[in-house]
Structures are given as structure tokens and as C-alpha cells.
């Protein structure tokens, strides 16, 4: 395929941009707080898929795009590439999360307890019910719930899967990497390192991740997991103070983590039967994405979940190249650009083919 440059149309392009800005100008009046705290799940999707945690820029991206999440994530991903990378934070472990919500569908009683947290799982999706009007919510918001506070903020809350791990009932995959691969600097060749697959999925587009994992759940694969541990909450970001050499807390980020448990498999390490697990993690609150990621992780790393070897979710080649929202939306949208010459060539080929068929 070849591209042919076009020229002209500068005034119309300027007018189009102006028209776009005018159409969404009311967004300018929406403040950072309203967007960051009111539309938290949109902000979190933008940050997660843009692979950059910045609540300020997520809000700004939403204003500039009229709430188009694909475009907004594009803004963040583009901005990320313009910033100097100063280094790595200390590794983040989801068991040290200050949890707001933490559930397990595998075990009724888990260390630390089941915490429903802020969730719309129990909301009836009918407009006549208003969440903000329920008395329980208002009481808790105003700090008058009368319940004893639990201060587990700095405690470690182990995953619900941890008890199985301690009992040696979980497959621990071999770690073949000294340091994690970074797909934002170079793209790996197959067979893809696990860390590269996890990074790609962690910044993957929620809809794509869900759709691919759904293929396995529904029948084009064989993953039907039990959620061992699903949590949302805050993780501390720490860095080393350059002058004291000690750890310094920079701030906290919202995050979601999910460990799914699959059926038992033969452990490649010693051939014993153990349970397979998958891990999903993304910045921001996005349970659907974390669950989908854990399913894809399990499907790709345990071939027993493949049916006939032709399914989608078990294929790293498919997942690696098709879950990124910036790339896929960019490709889809490029079809809108002028293809006059290539299409004329298509028409000429059609005419020639017709001539030859007629002959």
C-alpha cells in the first residue's frame, strides 16, 4: 500500500478544528474536581489505557475531547512520550494496597474479610433509583455512620489466593526474566516475555480485553475462573531520596488487582496437579479490565485452556497486537484519510478485470 500526499484545504481544516472546539466548548466549564472525583471511572480508563497516571491531565484530556475516551487516552499516551523518564518507583505489591473493596468468590471467609466497598454491583440500573439519595450513603459520607473505624491503611492484606499458595496448591510459573521488558521502548519478538504481555494488557483497551477474554469464557476456549481475590484501593508510590538514600513516599495511586483461579493443570515444574491462576492489574479502578486480564493471562500461559488450538484468547500473537486502544483506533480512523489514489488504482484494476472477464 502506498500513500500519496495531498495539499490544500488548510482553511477548511482550521474551520473544522474550530467547529469541533465550539461543539464541546461547554466542557471548559467543568472543573478538575468534578471530572477527577465525579467521573472517576472515565478518568481511570483514560489513565490506564494511556499508561500514564495523571489525574490532572486525564481531566484536561476529557475536556479537550468532549469525553471521547479513546482520544483522551491518546492525549495521555502522547504526553507520556514527551516527558523525561526519571527512573523506576519501588515495586508495587497489590497485597500492600490500602483496600477500599476486596472480595473473593472462592472463599467465604478470607483473612481481612470481604469488603464490598464502593460498588455499583448492587445497584438496580433503573433511573428512578438515585444512589446519592440512599440514607446509608449520606450518613457514611457525613461521617455519622456510628460504626467503629478500621484503620488497616498501612497493613498488608494478603490475597485470598495466598492460603492456597502456602499449601503448595498453586502453579508458580518459572520467572525467566532478570528485569521486566518495557514495550514502550521496543517491541519484543515472539515468543513474548511474560512481562511484555502483562504490560501490554495492563495498558490495553478495556473493551478489547473484555471481548477477547469473553471468547474464552463463552466457548472459544475453556477458561471459567473463580475470582480468588479482586481488590480496588490505593498503592503508595515510593522513590529513593537522592540525598538521604532512604525511601520517600511520593503519593498514592488508585489501582485494581485481580487473581483468578482456573481448573487444575499439570505443573510444568514437576508434573504434579495444581491450580492455575491468572493475574490482572491496572492503574485506576476498573474491575472488568482486571478480571479480563487475569483470564487472558491464564488462557495464554496454560495451553490446557485451548480448544482445538484455534481459539483467540490463548494466542499471545493475537492478544499482543490487538488489545491496544491507541493503535487499533488509530488504524480504524486512518481509513477516513484521503485514499483517492489507491482507490483509483482499485477501480482501474476492477475495470481491467472486467475487460479480461468479458474477453
Amino acid at each position, binding site marked *: 500500500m502506498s500513500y500519496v500526499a495531498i495539499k490544500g484545504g488548510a482553511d477548511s481544516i482550521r474551520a473544522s478544528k474550530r467547529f469541533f472546539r465550539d461543539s464541546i466548548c461547554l466542557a471548559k466549564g467543568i472543573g478538575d474536581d468534578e471530572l477527577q472525583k465525579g467521573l472517576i471511572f472515565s478518568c481511570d480508563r483514560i489513565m490506564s489505557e494511556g499508561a500514564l497516571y495523571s489525574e490532572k491531565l486525564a481531566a484536561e484530556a476529557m475536556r479537550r475531547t468532549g469525553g471521547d475516551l479513546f482520544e483522551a487516552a491518546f492525549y495521555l499516551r502522547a504526553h507520556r512520550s514527551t516527558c523525561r523518564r526519571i527512573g523506576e518507583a519501588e515495586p508495587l505489591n497489590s497485597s500492600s494496597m490500602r483496600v*477500599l473493596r476486596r472480595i473473593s468468590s472462592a472463599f467465604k471467609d478470607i483473612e481481612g474479610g470481604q469488603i464490598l466497598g464502593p460498588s455499583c454491583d448492587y445497584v438496580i440500573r433503573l433511573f428512578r433509583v438515585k444512589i446519592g439519595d440512599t440514607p446509608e450513603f449520606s450518613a457514611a459520607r457525613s461521617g455519622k455512620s456510628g460504626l467503629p473505624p478500621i484503620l488497616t491503611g498501612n497493613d498488608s492484606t494478603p490475597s485470598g489466593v495466598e492460603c492456597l499458595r502456602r499449601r503448595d496448591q498453586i502453579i508458580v510459573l518459572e520467572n525467566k526474566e532478570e528485569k521486566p521488558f518495557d514495550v514502550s521502548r521496543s517491541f519484543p519478538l515472539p515468543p513474548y516475555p511474560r512481562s511484555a504481555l502483562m504490560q501490554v494488557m495492563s495498558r490495553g483497551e478495556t473493551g478489547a480485553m473484555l471481548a477477547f477474554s469473553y471468547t474464552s469464557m463463552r466457548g472459544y476456549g475453556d477458561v471459567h475462573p473463580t475470582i480468588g481475590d479482586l481488590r480496588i484501593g490505593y498503592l503508595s508510590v515510593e522513590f529513593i531520596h537522592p540525598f538521604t538514600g532512604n525511601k520517600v*513516599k511520593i503519593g498514592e495511586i488508585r489501582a485494581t488487582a485481580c487473581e483468578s483461579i482456573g481448573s487444575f493443570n499439570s505443573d510444568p515444574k514437576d508434573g504434579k496437579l495444581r491450580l492455575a491462576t491468572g493475574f490482572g492489574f491496572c492503574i485506576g479502578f476498573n474491575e472488568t479490565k482486571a478480571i479480563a486480564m487475569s483470564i487472558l493471562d491464564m488462557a495464554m500461559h496454560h495451553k490446557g485452556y485451548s480448544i482445538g488450538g484455534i481459539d483467540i484468547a490463548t494466542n499471545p500473537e493475537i492478544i499482543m497486537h490487538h488489545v491496544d486502544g491507541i493503535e487499533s483506533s488509530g488504524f480504524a480512523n486512518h481509513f477516513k484519510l484521503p485514499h483517492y489514489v489507491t482507490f483509483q488504482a482499485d477501480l482501474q484494476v476492477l475495470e481491467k478485470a472486467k475487460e479480461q472477464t468479458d474477453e
Partner: protein
Amino acid sequence: MKRENNNFYLQQAEQDEINTLSQQIKCRANVQIIQQPTAQTLMLPIDDPVNQGTFYGGEVLVSSAIVQVNDVDGWAMVMDDTPVLALSIAILDAAYAAGVEQEAIAKLVQQGRQRHEQNLQNTQTEVAATKVSFDLM
């Protein structure tokens, strides 16, 4: 008071007061800006429970600055694109290490700590209300 705690707690304190105090320190002490506050990114390595390895879960936007107050180094790294706050906290960090305005800095740190703990308390009250133990039928 641990110097390393100041960076986080000062971000929770009243920002106008932090900026005012850093301006006062600029007037009273010799403040040199070694590195202007700039927005940078930090990679976020995530511990992977499946293979006990790590992977990158994304990046976080931070702002950092390096200064000297009376020849003592100070540094700050704060969340998001907030260069003014980064510079002010870096000045406070160096001033604290140099023994300049320590009492005023400690007061602001305390203010930030109290705000953070109050927020935690409020959140944990709401979290506690959602703790559940389902009964089997």
C-alpha cells in the same frame, strides 16, 4: 520527625501556606535552584504473583526539583504536573536539613499529616460499613 515523611505530608497541607513559607525562606536564606521543577515520569513495576517476577503497569507523572538552602541539598518529588509545589517542597526539604524555619516546616508537616489521617479515618469508616459475611443457604 523523619525528613523522608515530609515530602508526602507537605503535599496534603495547605498549598498557599507552603508557597508562602518557601518565599519567606528565599528571603531569609541563600536559596539556589539546582534543577528547575520539571514534569517527569516514573515507571511502575508491579509484583506478579503468578511467577514471582515483575512487569510494568504504566507510568506516573511526577514533578521534581533540586535546590540548595545555605549550601545544603534539598529535593522534592510530587504527584502530577505541579512544578510550583515541587519547588516549594524542595526548598522546605533543604531548609529543614539546613535548620532553617524548622518549626514552621514541622507545623505544616503536622497539618498535612492530620489532614491525611482524617481522610483515612473517613474512608475507613465507609469501608468498614461495607464489610460483609454472607451466610450460606
